[in-house]
């Protein structure tokens, strides 16, 4: 890989003296889909949150496209224009309709033309099969529907990459599929995706590469076939034996 689009180099992060990331390095190429798996508390969310600067790092270097995330004078708007994020708990704005949730940031933050953004938002809602709920409030939707709105909201910023943090973990089983289908579609369209997930079948199907984290370290990584067939590290084997 010659020119990674997202680059983490030797990233360290502690919360109150508890080390959470202990030297994480990841290179992600443009258009690549990677899945991060690993036990709870191993630092998966923290990796994502460092990439979009929700969590400042203690040490190390992060770059997304031409944006130096770890630089002092980071342009947060430019970074958020470049990288979107979808959360486990959807985190939609309860006081805004579905359509407003999707369109508000491009209008208010990126200062884009309202009519154009609204048109784009409607198209995205159609894409996630929620065009008919445009005027509903988030509280009126099911978890799976809310998560699809959250994905449309991230897409409406026209990002180059999207971070997904266990986006199906809070959903009832029958809604997991509808959300994964949308992510698959986005991944197939060439979006750079960083997906933290416990859905091993999904990871195997969509990922170009799988990373396994444990104790704030990336223990091993590889293409899905190899990763699932011959995990090299004992910790990976033990984790996979529990979840597969």
């Amino acid at each position, binding site marked *: 890989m010659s020119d990674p689009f997202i680059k983490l180099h030797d990233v360290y992060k502690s919360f109150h003296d508890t080390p959470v990331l202990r030297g994480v390095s990841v290179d992600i190429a443009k258009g690549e889909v990677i899945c991060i798996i690993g036990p709870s508390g191993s630092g998966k969310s923290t990796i994502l949150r460092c990439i979009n600067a929700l969590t400042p790092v203690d040490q190390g270097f992060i770059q997304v496209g031409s944006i130096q995330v770890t630089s002092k004078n980071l342009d947060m708007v430019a970074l*958020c*224009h470049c990288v979107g994020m979808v959360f486990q708990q959807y985190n939609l*704005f*309860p*006081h805004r309709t579905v359509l407003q949730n999707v369109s508000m940031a491009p209008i208010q*933050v990126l200062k884009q033309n309202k009519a154009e953004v609204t048109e784009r938002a409607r198209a995205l809602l159609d894409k996630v099969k929620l065009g008919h709920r445009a005027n*509903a409030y988030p*509280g*009126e939707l099911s978890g799976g529907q809310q998560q699809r709105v959250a994905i449309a909201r991230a897409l409406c910023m026209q990002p180059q990459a999207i971070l997904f943090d266990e986006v199906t973990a809070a959903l009832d089983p029958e809604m997991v599929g509808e959300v994964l289908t949308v992510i698959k579609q986005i991944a197939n369209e060439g979006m750079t995706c960083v997906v933290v997930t416990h859905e091993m079948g999904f990871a195997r199907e969509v990922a170009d590469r799988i990373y396994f984290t444990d104790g704030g370290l990336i223990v091993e990584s590889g293409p899905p076939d190899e990763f699932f067939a011959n995990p090299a590290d004992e910790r990976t084997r033990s984790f996979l034996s529990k979840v597969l």
Partner: protein
Amino acid sequence: MKFFRALHERGGINLTIFYDPFDMSRFIHGLYLTVVLFLICAVASVLLGLFAVAFLTLPYRVPRAIVRGYVAFFRNTPPLVQIYFFYFGLGALVPTSRNAYGLPVAMVNNFDWALIALSLYAGAFNVEIFRAGIEAIHHSIVEAATALGYSKAATFLHVMVPLAWRISLPALSNNLIELLKTTTLAYAIGVPELLYVSNQIWSDNINTFAMMNVLMVVYLLLVGVVAIAMHRWERVLKLPGFGAAR
């Protein structure tokens, strides 16, 4: 008018405000002052509460300490003492000008002092009410705004205020009702509001009992209007699937 005059002469219930033009006009003016005092203080105290709570969310120690000091001072002292403090204490320090007859006129009159004192008093409670509203917002919602590129100020304005406002409305209604009742304290510094003029009227006509009843009914109605208006507002702003009625 005839009816009320008859009621006085034959029934012994003397409601001068309904047949005596002078008493009627004093009473209406008192009612007007009460309403104006309440409305201005309500708006001012809400704005004050919002600004102060914005300071509380800032990561700076000094503005936060100032807001905390303000809240402690106005919440922990009696409002009547505050009104006296402003009118007699601070009022003495304010320069006076002279009117056309050469008599001294305070630049800040008693009505203004009542406005200031009551706004600060109700504002202190509003700070606490809004703070509780903001603390009830789940941090992850704020995080989602940050991840969409909203600055701290924009997040406060577009996300926290609309949500905190809805959470705060029931407590805010209580405080505004309290404020409406507290406007009667302006009586103490001679602001001719409803209680003050009623006192004048019953002193002149010795119809204390009748006027007391009138006062009770008028305040019941005023508070009722405020309560109903705030309740309507709560209903209008109610979001499906958000808040207590989940």
